[in-house]
């Protein structure tokens, strides 16, 4: 084992350029992978935030008395998956409308003193996926005139998240393969440049594993060093990004949960070691058959 480490470092020193190229490729691959990963995580996070803010508006028939309308609350609360029920009277509705248009124009005047708005309930779902079902049940209540929710928006958002996840996985796999083949090539060059040495090793009775270990180590060290570089730059980049988003685009919910982000870093490190080992394994399988 001691010899294996020494030989691995010796070989990396001897093939400095190739080692550097492999480390750089792993670093770049993992950096792209990390960016893609954080992007997917953020879009998921964004979807979650948006989903949780989706509301269902249930407009009440106008011929109901205020008292009957207020009593409806229990019916809404009885629907499974509902997180929150809020009553918005027509007066409050008009006030909200007025606020949105500003002080310049008096809506009340324009409407000739009538309030055309119905009373309504505003519901929130616990899970976004439940929104269409809850809307359906609300529609079934006879006192409800009609139901509005972000029809289609939920579905579109979920579809987008899934799509991003798929694209992300494909990109990650493709980049990972590219990195494996680069490491394989670099190890192959090392094996090739050391074929005399390997031949002599075999003649003096070195076991196959003794011969393989330094190459495995070399691949893994290249993978790990590349991963560390990638994580380092990704961390700097993301910290900067978070800072800027928080300062200027405050409404964008960017992911700041450090434990999730550190899990990404940890996985990148493991993937780096795996890429290195896999790359070496590929070239060793082909070249050490004697």
């Amino acid at each position, binding site marked *: 084992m001691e010899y294996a480490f020494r030989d691995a470092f010796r070989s990396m020193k001897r093939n400095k350029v190739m080692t550097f190229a492999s480390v750089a490729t792993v670093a770049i691959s993992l950096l792209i992978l990390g960016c893609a990963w954080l992007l997917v995580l953020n879009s998921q996070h964004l979807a979650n935030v948006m989903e949780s803010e989706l509301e269902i508006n249930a407009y009440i028939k106008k011929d109901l008395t205020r008292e009957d309308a207020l009593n409806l609350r229990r019916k809404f609360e009885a629907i499974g998956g509902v997180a929150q029920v809020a009553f918005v009277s027509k007066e409050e509705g008009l006030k909200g409308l007025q606020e949105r248009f500003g002080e310049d124009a008096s809506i009340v005047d324009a409407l000739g003193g009538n309030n055309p708005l119905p009373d309504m309930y505003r519901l929130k779902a616990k899970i976004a996926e439940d929104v269409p079902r809850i809307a359906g049940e609300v529609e079934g209540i006879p006192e409800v005139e009609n139901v509005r929710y972000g029809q289609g928006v939920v579905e579109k958002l979920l579809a987008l998240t899934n799509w991003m996840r798929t694209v992300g996985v494909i990109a990650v796999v493709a980049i990972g393969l590219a990195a494996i083949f680069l490491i394989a090539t670099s190890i192959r060059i090392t094996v090739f440049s050391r074929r005399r040495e390997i031949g002599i090793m075999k003649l*003096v009775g070195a076991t196959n594993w003794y011969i393989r270990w330094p190459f495995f180590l070399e691949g893994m060290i290249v993978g790990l060093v590349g991963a560390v570089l990638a994580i380092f730059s990704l961390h700097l980049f993301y910290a900067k990004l978070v800072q800027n988003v928080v300062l200027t685009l405050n409404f964008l919910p960017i992911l700041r949960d450090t434990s999730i982000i550190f899990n990404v870093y940890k996985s990148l490190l493991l993937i780096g070691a795996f890429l290195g080992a896999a790359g070496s394994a590929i070239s060793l399988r082909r070249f050490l058959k004697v």
Partner: protein
Amino acid sequence: MIQIFNVSKTYEGEVTIEALKNISLHIKRGEFVFLVGPSGAGKSTLTRLLIREELPTQGQILVNGKSLLRLREREIPYYRRKIGFVFQDFRLLMERTIYENVAFAMEAIEFPKHEVKEKVPAVLEMVGLQDKLNSYPHQLSGGQQQRVCIARAIVNNPFVIIADEPTGNLDPDTSWEVMNLLQAINKRGTTVIAVTHDREIVNRMQKRVIALVNGRLVRDEERGVY
């Protein structure tokens, strides 16, 4: 110790080559044997069979009573540890020092470092290169390089040394140095099998001579000549 029974080796290809035809011979512990014959006679094939680089097409080879045919793939390295090799082209690692070249053979079979540190200088002293430990192969003459190769071959205490044309690249004087060294090693009890073309050396050393021609064993004489 080495027993070869009716061994034939055929290479199938576009042209089928019968490299060895029905060879039988015994080599006893401590013997010094010359393997002679023209190019293509099958000398190299025989050595390749002995180090279990290849298997015979027919026949049986026993080394210390164990069949090479029944040796499992993962047992081969352990078998080879008992054999020392000397090559015509030395096969030294050019970018490593003399010390490292010899140490390499011990490291490859995982001797602990302190034993390597003790043994390598001792062996290099035996071949007369104690003051060249930190030189590189290209700084040495051909004869010196061959002695490094011999040091590497004996450092793991093999029971047999197989020397493939050990003097093939050397001038007559240096050739004698190398042969004398092999003879000295033989005197300590190690079997030596030397493949050679060198008529004069064979004739003067008066050892057992096994001659191959066209894959057949044509002569096997104690104290023979080329």
